[in-house]
Each structure stands twice: as C-alpha cells, then as structure tokens.
C-alpha cells in the first residue's frame, strides 16, 4: 500500500469533495437538484476551511 502525504488543505479538499457527493446524492430528488446541492455543500465546506484557517491565522497574531 503506497503511503500518501497530504497537506491540510488537500486533505480538507478531498474530504469536502467526497462528503459533498454523498450529501448531494442522498438528499434531493432530481439529478439537477442533487448536483446543485452537492456543489453548494462543497462550497460551504471550502468556505469554512478557508474562513476558519484565516481565523486561526489571525488569532495567533
């Protein structure tokens, strides 16, 4: 099994991607709604990652 080293951002990006796919698939009724909801979840995830990242950066001074 190859070993993988990911940065915080890469790991969070992949986590957001796969979670968003599942959340999109299970929640809505049409494919269009699923795609839009999955995309929205992904953007929310990434917004939270970047926002919290800046918050921690600024909090450390």
């Amino acid at each position, binding site marked *: *099994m*190859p*070993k*993988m*080293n*990911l940065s*915080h951002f890469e*790991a969070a990006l*992949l*986590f957001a991607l*796969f*979670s968003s*796919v*599942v*959340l999109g*698939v*299970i929640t809505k*009724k049409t494919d269009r709604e699923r795609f839009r909801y999955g995309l929205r979840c992904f953007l929310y995830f990434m917004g939270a990652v970047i926002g919290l990242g800046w918050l921690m950066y600024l909090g450390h001074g």
Partner: protein
Amino acid sequence: MPSNATKPPAPPIGTWAPAVGLGWLIPGGGHFLLKRNGRGALMLASVLCMFLLGLMMRGAMFQPQTGDILTTIIYCGGFLGDLASGALYLLATWFGYSQQDVAGHVHDYGTKFLVAAGLLNILAMVDAYEIATGKKD
C-alpha cells in the same frame, strides 16, 4: 393530551433488510440491488476513495475502549464508524492494514477519513432504506 393519530405500521423487514444489509457490506450495494445504479456507483466511489485515502495516509482503526465518558465516546464511536464501512473494514483488518495510532497530522487525517467513510456509508444505508420502503423515489 394523547393524540388520536395512529402511527403508520413499520414496513416489513423483508422489504428493506436485504438492501440495508448489502449496503453495509458493499458501499452502494443497496442502491445496486434497488436498481439505482448511478447513485450506487457514486456512493461506492466516494466511500471507497475515502477509505483507501485513509489507509494510504496510515490512519488508525479504532478499538473499543471504555474509561471516562470522552474516551468511551471517542473510541466506541470511532470503532462503530470504522465498522460501518462493512467489507472494506473487515478486509483491511483481516489483511493487516490496521495501523497503530501514531502522531502526525497526516495519520490523524487518515484516521478521520476511515471513520468518515463509514459515516458516509451509514447515510447511504439510510437512503437505501428509504428507497426500499417507498419513502423516497
């Protein structure tokens, strides 16, 4: 004041148990059984990728431990999360891919990815249950 509304009867176990059981064993398997192949493939790809990434990052598998409340929640909950990946967890454990818990952010992410894969599979199983019982298309 007690409500007069009668609770709808629970769906018979035979209608949903095969889909949920197969969905636990093989991520997306319940959807394949119910002829939702596209959704099943997306579930399978997501859970499988997340689980394999967790293994490649050398994430640790949780073993149930009890002690103080936080230890019990983390270790028993983590074990259940790992176990929810079904055959992926069983095969990884049997073939010796279960890692020791070591320090480092990559290993820590790997551990979380392994648990998250199981949690996503639980969502897939719930979706399969709702489809099998007719609560969802």
